[in-house]
C-alpha cells in the first residue's frame, strides 16, 4: 500500500514537472568589453526546482539574488498553480569575441529542463561604459549623479550572531517612469531579518529611500555582502523626434549596482564563557511565573519562562529546568514574538511547561538561569529568574489503596483494569474445622485395629502350634504305659477271646504304640513306612529289624490256620511286651 502511494506521488510529481520552463534573457546581445550584461533566468511551472548554473569560461558571473512570483489561473475550469523564480545575474565578459551563454538547467522528476543558449558578442570597447561619479564620501555607490544606490552597514566588525543593520539607500533627483525593481544583495552566511517599513526622506536635494535589513552572522570569518541592484525605468528626455516618445515615456531601464561590502565576523571570546552558554548574543532578561501558587497534588501548574531582549530571538535555546522528582514534567511548548520597531530586532521567546506536583508540602521550582553574550561590553552575562515556591495541598488520592501494588500482567487480549480481592463465597455447603484426629482416642484405637488383629492372629497361631507339639509329646510319653496296660488287660483273666480276635487286639496295641511314638495314626501304616521312620529315630538296626519282624509275625499268625506252626498266644504277648520295653529304652 505504502509503495503504491509512493509510486502515485512520484508519478504525479513527474506529470506535474512536465510543464516547467526555463528561459534566459539578456538585456543586450552586443556589448563593449568592460560592459556588463544583465542576465535573467526564469524558472516557472507548477514546481520550481533549484537552478543549476553552468560552467562559464568566458564570463565572470555574479549572482544578484532571486525572487519568487506565484500565480493561480483557471483554464477550462481547472485550477493550475504556477510559480516562477527569477534569478538575476551579472555577467562580466573576460574579453572581446563571440561567446555563448550556456544553458541553465533544472532537474525535476528525472527530467532535465534547459534554457536556450544565448549568443553574445563583445566588441573591443569603443568607449568605456559610463561610470558614475561618486557622491561625496560614499564608496559604495554607482549610477549617475541623478540616481545612485549605496549599501551601508552600521558596523563592519561584528561578533557571531551580533546583528548588523544593513541599509540599502536609493538616492534620486529625477522622477522615475515606473517602480524600480530591487534585487537584494547576496547575504550568504547571515541570518536575514527584513526591517520594514522603508524610510522615505530627502537629503541634499535627493529623494532617499532606505531599506533596512538586520543580518546575523552565523559563523566567524570574512564575508562579502554582494551587490544590491536596482533597475529603474528612467524617462528619456530631449529626444523629441518622436512626438509620442516624450509623452508616452520613452523610458529606458537603468541598472544601479552597489559595491560589495566586506564584513569581518569575530568569534565569541573563549575567555569567561560559561559552560551553559548556548550561543545567544544580545541583551536579554528572564522571567519565570506560574499560573497558580496554591495547588493540590496531581493538579497541573503551568510554568512560563520568558526570555526577552534585543538580539537574534530565534537562536534562544530552551533554558534548563532542573526539577526534583517531586514534580512530573510534561512537554514544553515555545512561542516566539519578534518585534522590529525602531529597526532593531527585539522580542521574546516564551516556554510553557506543565508541571504536576506529586507530593504535598512546599515545593520549590529552582531558579532558572540563562547565559548570553553582550557585544556591547563584550562579556558573558548570566541572568536568573527568582525561584518559585508552590504550596501543594494533598489532593484526592487516586486509588491510593492500590498504589503500591505490583504492576499487573497484561496478557494480549485481556486488559486488566484494576484488581481486587475475589468475591465472597455463598452460604450453602460449608467446610468446617474439625477436631484434631490425632488427639482423638477413638481415632487412635481405630487406627491401631489392624495391629491388634495382626498381633492376635500371630498369638493364636503360636498357641495352636505349641499345643499341637504338646499333644504329640503327651501321646509319645504315654504310649508305653498305655500299651503295657492294654497288654496286661489282654493277658489277664476273664474270658479269653478267640485266637484271631486276640491276635488282632495284640497287633492293634503294638501298632498304636508305634503310631503314638512317631505321631502318626496307627491305621494305614505300612511296614515300609514304619521301617523308614524307625531307622531315622533308632540306631540299632537289629532292634528295627526285630520290630518290623514282629509286625510281620503278628500279621502272619493272625491269619495263619490255627495250630499249624502257631505260636502260643502267651509267647507272642510276651514278645510284644519285650519289644515295646526295648523300644522305649532305646528312646523311640
Amino acid at each position: 500500500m505504502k509503495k503504491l502511494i509512493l509510486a502515485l506521488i512520484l508519478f504525479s510529481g513527474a506529470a506535474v514537472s512536465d510543464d516547467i520552463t526555463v528561459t534566459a534573457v539578456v538585456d543586450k546581445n552586443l556589448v563593449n568589453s568592460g560592459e556588463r550584461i544583465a542576465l535573467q533566468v526564469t524558472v516557472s511551472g507548477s514546481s520550481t526546482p533549484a537552478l543549476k548554473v553552468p560552467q562559464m569560461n568566458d564570463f565572470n558571473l555574479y549572482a544578484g539574488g532571486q525572487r519568487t512570483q506565484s500565480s493561480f489561473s483557471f483554464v477550462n475550469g481547472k485550477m493550475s498553480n504556477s510559480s516562477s523564480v527569477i534569478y538575476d545575474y551579472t555577467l562580466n565578459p573576460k574579453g572581446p569575441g563571440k561567446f555563448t551563454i550556456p544553458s541553465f538547467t533544472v532537474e525535476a522528476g528525472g527530467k532535465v529542463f534547459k534554457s536556450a543558449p544565448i549568443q553574445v558578442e563583445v566588441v573591443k570597447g569603443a568607449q568605456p561604459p559610463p561610470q558614475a561619479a561618486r557622491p561625496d564620501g560614499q564608496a559604495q555607490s554607482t549610477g549617475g549623479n541623478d540616481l545612485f544606490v549605496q549599501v551601508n552597514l552600521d558596523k563592519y566588525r561584528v561578533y557571531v550572531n551580533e546583528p548588523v543593520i544593513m541599509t540599502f539607500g536609493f538616492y534620486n533627483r529625477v522622477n522615475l517612469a515606473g517602480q524600480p525593481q530591487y534585487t537584494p544583495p547576496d547575504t550568504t552566511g547571515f541570518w536575514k531579518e527584513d526591517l520594514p517599513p522603508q524610510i522615505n526622506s530627502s537629503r541634499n536635494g535627493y529623494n532617499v529611500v532606505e531599506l533596512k535589513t538586520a543580518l546575523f552572522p552565523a559563523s566567524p570569518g570574512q564575508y562579502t555582502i554582494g551587490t544590491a541592484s536596482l533597475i529603474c525605468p528612467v524617462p528619456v528626455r530631449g529626444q523629441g523626434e518622436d512626438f509620442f516618445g516624450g509623452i508616452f515615456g520613452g523610458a529606458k531601464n537603468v541598472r544601479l549596482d552597489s559595491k560589495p561590502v566586506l564584513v569581518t565576523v569575530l568569534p565569541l571570546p573563549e575567555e569567561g564563557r560559561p559552560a551553559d552558554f548556548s550561543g545567544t548574543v544580545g541583551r536579554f532578561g528572564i522571567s519565570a511565573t506560574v499560573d497558580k501558587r496554591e495547588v493540590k497534588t496531581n493538579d497541573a501548574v503551568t510554568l512560563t519562562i520568558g526570555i526577552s531582549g534585543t538580539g537574534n530571538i530565534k537562536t534562544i535555546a530552551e533554558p534548563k529546568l532542573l526539577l526534583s522528582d517531586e514534580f512530573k514534567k510534561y512537554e514544553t511548548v515555545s512561542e516566539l514574538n519578534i518585534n522590529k520597531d525602531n529597526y532593531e530586532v527585539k522580542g521574546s521567546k516564551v516556554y510553557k511547561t506543565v508541571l504536576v506536583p506529586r507530593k504535598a508540602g512546599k515545593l520549590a521550582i529552582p531558579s532558572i538561569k540563562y547565559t548570553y553574550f553582550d557585544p556591547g561590553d563584550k562579556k558573558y552575562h548570566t541572568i536568573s529568574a527568582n525561584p518559585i515556591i508552590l504550596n501543594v495541598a494533598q489532593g484526592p488520592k487516586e486509588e491510593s489503596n492500590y498504589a503500591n501494588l505490583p504492576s499487573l500482567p497484561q496478557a494480549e487480549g485481556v486488559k486488566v483494569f484494576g484488581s481486587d480481592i475475589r468475591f465472597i463465597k455463598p452460604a450453602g455447603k460449608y467446610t468446617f474445622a474439625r477436631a484434631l484426629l490425632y488427639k482423638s482416642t477413638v481415632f487412635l484405637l481405630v487406627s491401631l485395629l489392624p495391629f491388634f488383629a495382626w498381633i492376635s492372629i500371630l498369638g493364636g497361631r503360636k498357641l495352636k502350634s505349641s499345643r499341637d507339639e504338646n499333644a504329640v509329646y503327651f501321646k509319645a510319653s504315654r504310649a508305653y504305659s498305655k500299651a503295657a496296660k492294654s497288654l496286661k488287660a489282654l493277658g489277664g483273666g476273664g474270658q479269653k477271646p478267640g485266637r484271631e480276635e486276640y491276635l488282632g487286639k495284640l497287633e492293634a496295641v503294638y501298632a498304636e504304640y508305634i503310631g503314638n511314638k512317631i505321631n502318626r495314626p496307627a491305621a494305614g501304616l505300612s511296614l515300609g513306612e514304619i521301617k523308614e521312620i524307625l531307622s531315622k529315630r533308632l540306631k540299632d538296626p537289629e532292634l528295627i529289624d526285630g520290630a518290623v519282624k514282629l509286625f510281620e509275625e503278628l500279621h502272619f499268625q493272625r491269619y495263619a490256620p490255627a495250630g499249624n506252626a502257631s505260636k502260643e498266644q502267651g509267647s507272642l504277648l510276651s514278645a510284644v511286651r519285650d519289644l515295646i520295653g526295648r523300644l522305649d529304652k532305646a528312646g523311640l
Partner: protein
Amino acid sequence: MRSLAKIIILALLPVTMLSADSGLDAANKLYESGKYTEAAAAYGAAINAGNAGAEAYYNLGNACFKDKKIGFAILNYEKALAISPRDADIKYNLEFARNFVKDNAVEDSAGRFLNAVYRFLTLNELCALLAAAFYLLMGGLIFRLYRKDELSYWLVSGASVLFLLILLFSGARVLEYETNNPAIVVLLSVEAKSAPIDATPAAFTLPEGKKVYILNTRQGWAEVLLKGENIKGWVKQDSIAEIR
C-alpha cells in the same frame, strides 16, 4: 473388620458439622450492599454461633479487607486456609492482602513451591492418610502370615516405605503445629519492646498484617518471634490475634 473401622472413621468426621445458619446469608447480603463493617460483625456473630467454616472465615476476611482492616483480613484468611488449604480463592485473597503489608521479609524459610506442597493437606487429612497407610501395612503383614510369597513381600515392603514417609511428614506437621503458635498483627504499626514493661523504649515496629509466632504470654503481653527477621520482642496481647 476394616469396613467396620471405615464406618467408625466416617462417623467420627462430621462430629462438629452443623447445619448452615441463615446468619451467614444475612451477613452476605450486608456485604453485597457495601456495608462492610456491619457485614464483618455479622460474620463474627455467625462464627461465634458455631458456623466456623472456611467460607465464613473467608467472607469475614473479605469484609475486613473492604473495611481496610488488613490485619484482621489476613488473620481470617489464614484461619480459612487452615481449614481448607487447597482453596484457590482463599489463597488468592490472602496473597492479595499480604501485598498491602509493608513487609519485605520472606514469609517462610521454605520456598513457595515446597511450602505449597507442605501445606497441601490438613493435619486431619494427613492423619487419615497415615492411618490408611498403617492399615495397608498391617494388612500386608497379616496376608504374609498366610502366604509367604513374593507378592506379600513386596506388599509389605511398599507399605512400610509409604507408611514411614507419611509418618515423617505428618510427624513434622504435628510437631510444627504443637510447637508454633502463629498470630497476626491486627493493629496499625505496633511497637515491640525488649521487655514486657510499658516504660521500655520500642525495639522495633510491626506492620499491620505481619505474621508472628507467640512464644510466651505474661500479664497482657506476648513475646513474639519474627521468623524471617529472626528477632524477638514483647507486644501487647490485644495488638495481635492468634490464628488458632
